């Protein structure tokens, strides 16, 4: 079992107002799985994704990542988990605009303490893998949305993570680029990377092996793909 989430709740407090976004979510994810999480906006799927990606901690419940209870980890320990075990793909790409494609891809490796030559080598390889071998020294502003998202995928892959989290990866892309990105993700999964993808588009979600629906902070049902 790669991930085990048990009775995860998340409560946001603003003044006297308490907002319960997740109401006891439990989920197990096996290594090599490809899970699509769907749900309307406000359903709590982003919050769930943040907890899954160790960007946030649950209010209650336990979250085990490779049998380590990360729900009790400190901010720096979570940063290390994110750095080494998780790759992120965001809807808005989230590349640093002042860095070139290859520098963006090298970033997680910098925080990992890799040497310059090792970083170059890894970053070059993953960029070639996503078909951007010729655009390594372009800045994000000089690339199309599809290319930017592929840089982001390369960045997620650079650290050779156990888990890749994709939050609406095709949300800002045209149909063709979206299809390319999804194909890359499927290819990754075929090679053994565990994938969790969040989307509100059933067509996109159908690429997953499992489809899980979130409604009002609860896993309402598992749709078979």
């Amino acid at each position, binding site marked *: 079992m790669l991930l085990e989430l048990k009775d995860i709740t998340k409560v946001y407090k603003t003044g006297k107002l308490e907002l319960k976004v997740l109401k006891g979510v439990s989920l197990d994810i096996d290594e090599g799985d490809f899970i699509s999480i769907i749900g309307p906006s406000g359903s709590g799927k982003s919050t769930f994704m943040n907890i899954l990606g160790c960007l946030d901690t649950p209010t209650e419940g336990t979250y085990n990542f490779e049998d380590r209870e990360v729900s009790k980890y400190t901010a*720096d320990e979570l940063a290390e988990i994110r750095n*080494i075990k998780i790759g992120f793909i965001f809807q808005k790409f989230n590349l*640093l605009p002042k860095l070139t494609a290859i520098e963006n891809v090298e970033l997680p490796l*910098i*925080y990992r*303490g890799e040497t310059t030559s090792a970083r170059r080598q890894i970053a070059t390889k993953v960029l070639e893998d996503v078909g951007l071998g010729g655009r390594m020294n372009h800045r994000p502003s000089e690339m199309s949305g599809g290319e930017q998202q592929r840089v982001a995928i390369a960045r997620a892959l650079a650290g050779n993570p156990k888990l890749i989290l994709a939050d609406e990866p095709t949300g800002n892309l045209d149909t063709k680029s979206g299809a390319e990105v999804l194909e890359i993700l499927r290819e990754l999964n075929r090679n053994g990377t565990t994938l969790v993808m969040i989307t509100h588009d059933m067509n996109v979600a159908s690429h997953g092996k499992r489809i899980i629906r979130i409604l009002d902070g609860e896993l309402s049902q598992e749709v078979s793909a």
Partner: protein
Amino acid sequence: MMFGKKTGMKAGMVIKLALASIFSNKMRSFLTMLGIIIGTSAVIILVTLAQATTESVTENIEGMGTNILSVSIMGTGNQTSLDYEDTLDISNIDGVDSISPIVSGQATLKYELNSTDITVEGADEGYAPVRGQSVSSGRFIHFLDIENRHKVILLGTEVVQDLFGFASPLGEQVKVNGTSFTVIGVLEESESTIGGSSNDKALIPVSTAERFFRSPGIKSINIQAESPESVAGVQVQLEAFLLRIFNNDQEAYRILNQTDMLSTIGEVTDMLTMMLGGIAGISLVVGGIGIMNIMLVSVTERTREIGIRKAIGAKRKDILSQFIIEAAVISGIGGLIGVIFGVIGSYIISNVMGLQMTIIFSILIISFVFSLAIGMFFGIYPANKASRLKPVDALMYE
């Protein structure tokens, strides 16, 4: 380390990132640096000038001679000065080599159509050895000039130039406040000392001066001891002598020796240096606040960047060091430019003021390190703020 692998960023990489971020916003970075540049160069210029002034004053005092005592008479009751004959008793004190009583006044000197307002000093033969003053042409004041109150005068080089141009003044008659004096000599050109330069002075016999300035009595005596070691002994006997004359009134006179003067001047100039350095230091602190201000803006602007960096694995210390080093690089570059401007500025100003400038290397180092430290200190707060941002919140920031 949880995964047994070394994590974290190398310092060289952080500095490279900081430089990239500084260069990506050149105008803002320069304006931020300006405070540090001005502060650092102000510290260097002011301290260097204060030191140069100290040196020049010290040199002047030392130029007086290390075995010189200077007596000023304030007087008490009816006894407001010393008789010329009384002053001669001082030369009998053990350890005294020679004495030079002075009567001083202002006068207008005229030769043909030229005139000049200068200080005229009444002196005797002691003036030459005590002041180390020689004549470049003609002769000095003689015992007989004093005895007979001769109307003779020696002129400083500047006075000669004002009145005679390049012609020789020897034997000519000059009018001193309307009275004719015969020029008997020209004083050797001298460096200016704390007693003033003799270049813009004229000397007449002390007895002539007493009558001429209608001020009978001597109010100022310079005494040369036989050696620097005998100065203290001479001073004790001199005090006893003066106390006797002025009925034990210690306020009636003042004796200065070079050591006392040097230490007094030293205290004053040290304080001056500290004060100037301190004022300039304040401007450096203000520059530091400027850095803090701009760093805070930068942290807000780059919230999203911080979020992305954290999401992909930057730890608190990575973000913290990134922003502190950025502040340090800004202030370091500013400090370096400030040091360069400070040296150039000191050079120009001391040239204009005619001071002998010596750049003190330690001041350059201290002001640079101080500016660096200020930048880092004021970078701590914004950097800490950045490092505490939660990745989720930072990623959501638009």
